């Protein structure tokens, strides 16, 4: 039982913290967020040069063997800085599937660019009818000669507009909700039959709706064994869920701190509003929520790095807690900021929107609690 982190780990956290403080001001972030594709090539280049895009990959794949702890430290800082660049989509989601399922040859072809930060990719894990069940896949892939032909519709594909590589789960057997018969394909976004409608999300991340019509790809687009994609998908979504929870903990803490600070500065009735006991007790509730969330995060991270059988459930427990208490902390922060809290010009509003999006991503708190209680 040890909560301490290594020298290297704390250096990693510090370097990102410095980057956020010095090179990722809120104004700069908003310029990026309001730009056409909500993304700064310069920032992403920076992430690559500092080795962050490679951090979570194995040495053999050109990475630095980072685990859940490293991912947590990075995402917490990205949360604090409200970073919009597609770390989650490229590294954790698309990269996560490739590093688990791709052959050496496929890795050389597709993963290396992701590790180096030169290639943009996306994992199309969601479908319109599925709500949050990522095993619910209606998109089909059928053999046609030596090729695979895909048909279907994918929703909310994070980084789907920017990506030149699409990782697409499709059904090669079984009925729509079966965990068997899911196969994974790596598809060049330029392939004919791929139609993308790119858009920004409410929290200023790039995404796209993607429809596939008779999209024909050669057999080496298949990642891993035919029909055996579910476990890879599950592992990857679990990592991604853990990642956004770490980001959320960074956001919760930041919103809480900014709110306490505001309450000390904002004077009404001749005194700082932070002197009103009703607000004090609510800010204490928020602090407790932050601490409880961090505790649950550390637990999930430790279990994940220990390859514990409980890790998956621990991540659902964490996501449930984040979903409920994160929403509360965010709402209280806005409320205590008063009118300013609902203006575009203040960062609080944008933290609020990101928290809202995180609750939804990979299944909201109700969905997670059903999983924890073994009800779905």
């Amino acid at each position, binding site marked *: 039982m040890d909560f301490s982190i290594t020298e290297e780990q704390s250096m990693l956290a510090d370097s990102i913290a410095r980057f956020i403080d010095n090179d990722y001001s809120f104004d700069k972030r908003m310029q990026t967020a309001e730009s056409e594709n909500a993304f700064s090539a310069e920032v992403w280049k920076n992430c690559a040069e500092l080795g962050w895009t490679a951090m979570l990959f194995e040495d053999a794949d050109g990475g630095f063997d980072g685990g859940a702890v490293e991912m947590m430290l990075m995402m917490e800082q990205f949360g604090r800085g409200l970073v919009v660049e597609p770390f989650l989509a490229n590294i954790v989601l698309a990269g996560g599937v490739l590093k688990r399922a791709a052959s050496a040859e496929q890795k050389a072809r597709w993963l290396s660019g992701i590790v180096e930060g030169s290639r943009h990719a996306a994992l199309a894990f969601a479908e319109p009818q599925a709500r949050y069940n990522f095993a619910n896949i209606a998109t089909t892939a059928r053999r046609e000669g030596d090729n695979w032909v895909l048909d279907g519709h994918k929703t909310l594909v994070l980084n789907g507009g920017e990506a030149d590589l699409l990782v697409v789960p499709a059904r090669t057997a079984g009925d729509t909700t079966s965990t068997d018969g899911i196969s994974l394909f790596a598809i060049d976004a330029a392939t004919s039959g791929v139609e993308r409608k790119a858009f920004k999300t409410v929290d200023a991340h790039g995404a796209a709706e993607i429809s596939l019509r008779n999209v024909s790809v050669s057999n080496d687009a298949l990642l891993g064994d035919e029909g055996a994609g579910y476990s890879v998908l599950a592992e990857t979504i679990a990592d991604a869920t853990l990642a956004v929870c770490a980001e959320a903990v960074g956001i919760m803490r930041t919103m809480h701190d900014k709110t306490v600070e505001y309450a000390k500065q904002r004077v009404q009735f001749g005194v700082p509003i932070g002197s009103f006991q009703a607000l004090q007790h609510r800010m204490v509730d928020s602090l407790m929520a932050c601490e409880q969330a961090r505790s649950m995060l550390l637990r999930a991270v430790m279990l994940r790095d220990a390859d514990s059988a409980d890790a998956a459930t621990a991540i659902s427990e964490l996501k449930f807690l984040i979903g409920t208490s994160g929403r509360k902390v965010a709402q209280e922060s806005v409320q205590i900021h008063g009118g300013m809290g609902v203006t575009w010009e203040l960062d609080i509003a944008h933290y609020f929107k990101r928290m809202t999006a995180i609750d939804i991503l990979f299944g909201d708190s*109700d969905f997670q609690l*059903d999983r924890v209680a073994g009800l779905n």
Partner: protein
Amino acid sequence: MHVNLTDDERAFEQEVRAFFRDQYPADIRAKHNAGVPLTRDDYIRWQKVLFKQGWAAINWPVEHGGTGWTPVQKYIFANEIANANAPDMVPFGVKMVAPIIYTFGTEEQKQRFLPDIIESNVWWCQGYSEPGSGSDLASLKTRADRAGDHYVINGTKTWTTLGHFADWIFCLVRTSSDVARRQEGISFILIDMNTPGVSVRPIITIEGEREVNEVHFENVEVPVENLVGEEGKGWTYGKILLQHERTNIAGVARSKYRLNKLREKVSQSVHGGTPLIEDRNFARKLASVAVELTALEFTELRTLAAVAVGKAPGPESSILKIKGTELQQELDTLFVEAAGYYALPYIPEQYVADFAVDERIGFGNETRSSLIYFNNRKASIYGGSNEIQKNIISKHVLGL
């Protein structure tokens, strides 16, 4: 004690329902239902229809064009306008400044301003809050210095809803700092926004739209006859104004309409998936909000009944404001939960009139749910934050 409507009340209900069915312009209805922001002209055109019907100023004294309706009639009207999803009268003129004018204004002021308000010829906005004066309104700093036959106004008002549409603004201003209680130095004044020195700056709100503004006054000269009532009595008038517009403060009828829409929505399959209502937990949350809403409806009816027999609504109506906004916000979150991933796309252009919803890609109004959720966080903040309302109840109802 009984819960039924009389035959006359039922007949009235039919009349009102027919009016919204037949008279509410189809093009405005379509835009509003699609969540497309209405233009200034849309509002005015619709409000002139209400005026023609004699329903523009429901709560005004009859002699000024009010309806003289009973509380139950007002309750019925509120339900019908909500069920038609038709916009209420923009409140700043007819519901906010007018009562001050017909209660404290001169004969001349009444004749000059009231007709244009009820006929929607002049658009009014509100100048109360200031950057430094939110919950603590009495600390307002905008000055009105007497200079001969006019006042010179300097200062900034904020959170001015639809101020960019407005012709006139009513303001609380400081006409004297040399008073025992700071409230006593405040006056209520009417300002033509075309006067030199008045400028309006947009404030973009969390969801990305322009709804509120900052209004700046730089040496704005306002004739003394635009002062309403006595100099230094503005605070009293302002408070009476706040106590005035009680009906519908909780927005119960609108919330009931939204709840029904939500129930319809989640009862249908989305893109071939399972209807969300089959999720027992969601069904329970929906039922729970419905119960609280029904209770609030009757709390409001009890208040109206009390008012009808002459009891002042008093601070109890703060309960309506708190509970009403809490329930609105609970509904907001349920809409977002129902939308799931479709709450996330941010596509403003979808909400300008000529944008055709791309059904194949599948964005319907789901994407609106999060924007409404974000924007409506204001509900527990404006009109006296819910914390301020609790202070009021604590002091004036509980005597703490």
